[in-house]
C-alpha cells in the first residue's frame, strides 16, 4: 500500500500575500496524514524558505511535492536570474535582497541555511540567466 501523493503549486512573482500558501497546504496535508510534528515542521520551514525565495528573487516558479511513506521531496524550480555563486548564497547572512524586501523582515540571508538545517537532503542547481532548482528531502 505504498502510495505516493504528488502535488503541484504555481508561485506568483512578488505576491507576498499568497507566499506561504503552498507550504501551508502541504503542512496541513502532512498533519492530516499523521506525519510526526517534527517532520511536518521541517518540511514547512524548508519549503516556505524556498517558496519565499522564488517570490523575492526569481519572479515566481513551480513547486512539485512528492509524499511517499518514507520521505517528502520538494522540488522548487524557477526561471529567474539564477545564482552566480551557490556556495556564497548558502552562507548565513549573505543576501542580495533589495530594501523594499528587507523592510518586510526578509533579507537576513538565512533562508538557504535554514533549508539546509531543516532538511535531510538539499541540492541547489542554478544557471545564471536561466534559473534555479532547489531540491529538498525530509525523511519521515
Amino acid at each position, binding site marked *: 500500500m505504498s502510495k505516493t501523493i504528488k502535488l503541484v503549486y504555481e508561485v506568483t512573482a512578488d505576491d507576498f500575500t499568497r507566499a506561504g500558501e503552498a507550504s501551508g497546504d502541504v503542512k496541513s496535508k502532512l498533519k492530516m496524514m499523521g506525519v510526526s510534528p517534527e517532520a511536518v515542521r521541517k518540511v514547512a520551514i524548508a519549503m516556505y524558505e524556498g517558496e519565499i525565495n522564488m517570490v523575492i528573487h526569481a519572479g515566481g516558479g513551480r513547486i512539485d511535492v512528492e509524499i511517499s511513506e518514507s520521505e517528502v521531496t520538494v522540488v522548487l524550480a524557477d526561471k529567474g536570474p539564477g545564482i552566480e555563486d551557490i556556495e556564497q548564497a548558502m552562507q548565513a547572512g549573505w543576501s542580495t535582497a533589495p530594501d523594499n524586501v528587507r523592510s518586510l*523582515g526578509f533579507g537576513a540571508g538565512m533562508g538557504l541555511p535554514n533549508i539546509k538545517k531543516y532538511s535531510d537532503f538539499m541540492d541547489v542547481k542554478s544557471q545564471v540567466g536561466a534559473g534555479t532548482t532547489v531540491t529538498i528531502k525530509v525523511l519521515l
Partner: protein
Amino acid sequence: MNMKLGDFISSAGFEIINGSGNMDTELSKVFCCDLLSFAMSRNPAGSVWVTVMGNVNTVAVAVLTDGGCIVIAESAMLDPSALEKAKQQGVTVLRTELPVFDAALKAHKLIVDK
C-alpha cells in the same frame, strides 16, 4: 509552566486585534524577533511571539511554526492583508503600546515565571 491562550488574553490585557484562534492552545514560551527567517527557524510551537513586524508574512510564519499567538508591540500597525490572513487561518493577534522587551517580560511572567 503553561497557560491557555484564553487565560493569557484575559490576564495580559493586551488589545485583541484578531481573536479567532483556539483558546485552548497551550502557551509555553515567549519569543522575540522581527526578522522572519530567524523567526521561521526559531519560533517555538505554542509561543507568544512578540514583534513589531505586522505584515502578512508574520502571520504565515506563525502558522507554519505552530506559534500560539502574535503580540504586536509598540502599537505597531498590522497590515490589512495580515489581519485578513490571521482571520482566515485562525491566528490570534494582540497589540500593546509596550516596547518589545516589556511586552515579552509581561508574557514571560504570566506564562513561564509565575
